[in-house]
């Protein structure tokens, strides 16, 4: 043991240096911690937090509820209902052993599902199904498959279907209005979608919501001036008329002349707004222009009366029933001989109207047309509405000077024609047209277009048109007095006007004693003998107006009773 060396005394500095070294190590750890968690440098706290959030926190849109569209009585025309879209991550789905169960829940064959998943093989996102009812979706979500989840959305339904389809329009799959009033009032109807933040897991499924960034704001409801009952009536009668006459298309408009409200507007062919396979969404009453033909003669009459050269009783000689203008020969069906101005309109005499036009000139006639709103847009705001066209030339040939008087050489939409006639029904005032319900206590003033006296005289003549010797007798409505003007327009083909293709028109006001409702009808290419305005369009006017007057509680033109004993007898009925 003596060999054992006496341990050498360890110098203190070595102990200190080891201790110092050991002390520095935890300090370095602390420093690193501070560096990562507290200090705000390049790879520091906020950077790491952001990176973490990028991997786990997602934000999602909260869909906003789109406003309801209703008719003037509150019947819904467009309703948003909650639906669920099933989305999946194909990467997670691909290797799932539950595809058969998923296919069964979706009620499709496993092969079809497999095919769809293969299609998205290199993607991270796919729709399994869009816009399912919540019950349907619940079945699939109950499987709790990783990577499959439901997204809440809204889908638009149109309870009135094809009856109001062209007017109300449609939205696209993302809920944006793309046609009709859905498009015109998109900003008003559409809400503001909100955003929320949530934490997701590895499969992309929401673990929990962590907060709302912005709440969704629902859109506003829209109440239209349309009365669904009238709309349906118009739709039904128009469809019936087209079936009866073998026509290819047709359009009808009904206005309340006192308020400027459009009560119903329909056109045929129709489409089903609830199906995504759509054909024509065009609302022909507003987007298609036509040469109005003889219905313009009522406006020519206004110009004649305003000139002071004519009264309703001024006699015009229409013999021999034809007239040469420039190189063109225009004729009446028969020689009417000398007839009054009123008869000229009642019989729709071409010769008579041309003589008036030649006498007063084309400027006052076109001036009346433009005052009545032709050639400019109505302020309905409807997408795709056309303004029509009034001729405006440097040099006018003889024939060009007279064609506007009988409604050729210019074009207009059916809505414009109805709006023009509403001036007669509103004592010479033109109200701004609208598709929205108007508060009857604060009606706009409208624009004075013609003297009330002249308006009354024109209504008188329009009434005579439907009387027993006029061209529009089939427009009569039992129990009421109505007035209107027929029109039969030859359609323009590749080589000028066609003899075989016509459009039948009728524009009328009712009831004559207190005119208020204007209805315009256009039947495109009615077949057979009865292709004229008086035989194809006037009966449709009659049936629609009968319903309009009944539904709007207009009092029939019958002897009134005020004896309560007579009333008592009514109770029993038959």
């Amino acid at each position: 043991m003596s060999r054992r060396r006496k341990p050498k005394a360890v110098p203190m500095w070595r102990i200190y240096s080891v201790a110092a070294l050991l002390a520095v190590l935890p300090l370095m750890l602390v420093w690193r911690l501070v560096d990562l968690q507290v200090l705000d440098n390049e790879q520091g706290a906020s950077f790491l937090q952001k990176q973490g959030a990028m991997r786990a926190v997602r934000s999602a849109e909260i869909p906003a509820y789109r406003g309801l569209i209703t008719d003037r009585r509150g019947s819904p025309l467009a309703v948003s209902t909650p639906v669920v879209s099933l989305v999946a991550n194909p990467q997670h789905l691909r290797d799932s052993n539950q595809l058969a169960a998923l296919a069964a829940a979706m009620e499709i064959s496993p092969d079809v599902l497999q095919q769809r998943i293969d299609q998205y093989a290199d993607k991270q996102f796919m729709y399994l199904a869009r816009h399912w009812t919540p019950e349907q979706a619940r079945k699939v979500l109950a499987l709790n498959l990783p990577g499959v989840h439901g997204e809440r959305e809204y889908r638009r339904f149109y309870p009135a279907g094809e009856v109001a389809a062209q007017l109300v329009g449609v939205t696209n799959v993302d809920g944006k209005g793309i046609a009709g009033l859905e498009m015109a009032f998109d900003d008003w109807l559409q809400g503001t979608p909100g955003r929320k933040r949530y934490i997701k897991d590895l499969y992309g499924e929401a673990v929990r919501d962590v907060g709302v960034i912005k709440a969704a704001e629902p859109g506003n409801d829209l109440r239209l001036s349309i009365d669904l009952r009238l709309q349906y009536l118009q739709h039904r009668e128009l469809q019936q008329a087209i079936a009866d006459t073998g026509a290819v298309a047709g359009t009808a408009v009904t206005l309340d002349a006192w308020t400027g409200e459009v009560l119903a507007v329909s056109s045929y062919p129709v489409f089903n707004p609830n199906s995504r396979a759509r054909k024509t969404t065009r609302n022909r009453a507003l987007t298609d222009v036509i040469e109005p033909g003889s219905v313009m003669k009522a406006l020519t009459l206004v110009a004649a009366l305003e000139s002071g050269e004519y009264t309703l009783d001024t006699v015009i000689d229409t013999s021999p029933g034809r007239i040469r203008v420039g190189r063109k020969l225009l004729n009446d069906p028969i020689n009417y001989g000398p007839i009054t101005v009123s008869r000229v309109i009642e019989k729709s005499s071409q010769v008579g109207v041309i003589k008036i036009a030649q006498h007063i000139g084309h400027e006052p006639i076109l001036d009346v047309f433009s005052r009545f709103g032709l050639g400019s847009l109505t302020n309905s705001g409807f997408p795709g509405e056309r303004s029509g066209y009034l001729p405006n030339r440097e040099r006018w040939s003889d024939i060009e000077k007279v064609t506007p008087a009988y409604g050729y050489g210019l074009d207009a939409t059916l809505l414009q024609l109805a709006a023009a006639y509403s001036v007669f029904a509103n004592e010479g005032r033109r109200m701004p047209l609208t598709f929205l319900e108007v508060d009857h206590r604060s009606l706009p003033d409208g624009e004075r277009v013609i003297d009330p006296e002249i308006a009354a005289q024109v209504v008188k003549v329009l009434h005579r048109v439907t009387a027993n010797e006029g061209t529009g007798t089939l427009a009569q409505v039992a129990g009421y007095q109505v007035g209107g003007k027929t029109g039969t327009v030859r359609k323009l083909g590749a080589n000028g006007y066609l003899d075989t293709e016509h459009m039948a028109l009728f524009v009328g006001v009712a009831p004559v004693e207190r005119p208020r409702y204007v209805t315009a009808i256009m039947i495109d290419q009615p077949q057979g003998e009865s292709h004229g305005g008086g035989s194809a369009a006037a009966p449709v006017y009659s049936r629609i107006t009968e319903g309009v007057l009944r539904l709007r509680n207009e009092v029939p033109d019958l002897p009134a009773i005020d004896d309560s004993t007579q009333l008592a007898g009514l109770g029993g009925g038959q």
Partner: protein
Amino acid sequence: MVRFVNQRRWVALLAVAALLSALGVLGTTHRARSQYAELQQLELRRWNLQEHYSRLLLEYSTRAAPHRVHRFAMEELGMTKPDLKRYRVVRP
């Protein structure tokens, strides 16, 4: 010496304040979380009610559709449009 005692009192006071504030944060966080959970519950409920409401609305408009009413009145109830002969106009 007096200054030292004062200082210690301040430190103690601030420590208590810090503790209280920490507890406050705890409470508020908890409340926020539970209220958010409630919000989600209510939103779910709103969603379900909306679903129900729009289904009822659709059902209503399907049943009250003019063509259905028309057919029902004509065929099942044997109703007709009033004949003009049966109209009586009463002077107000």
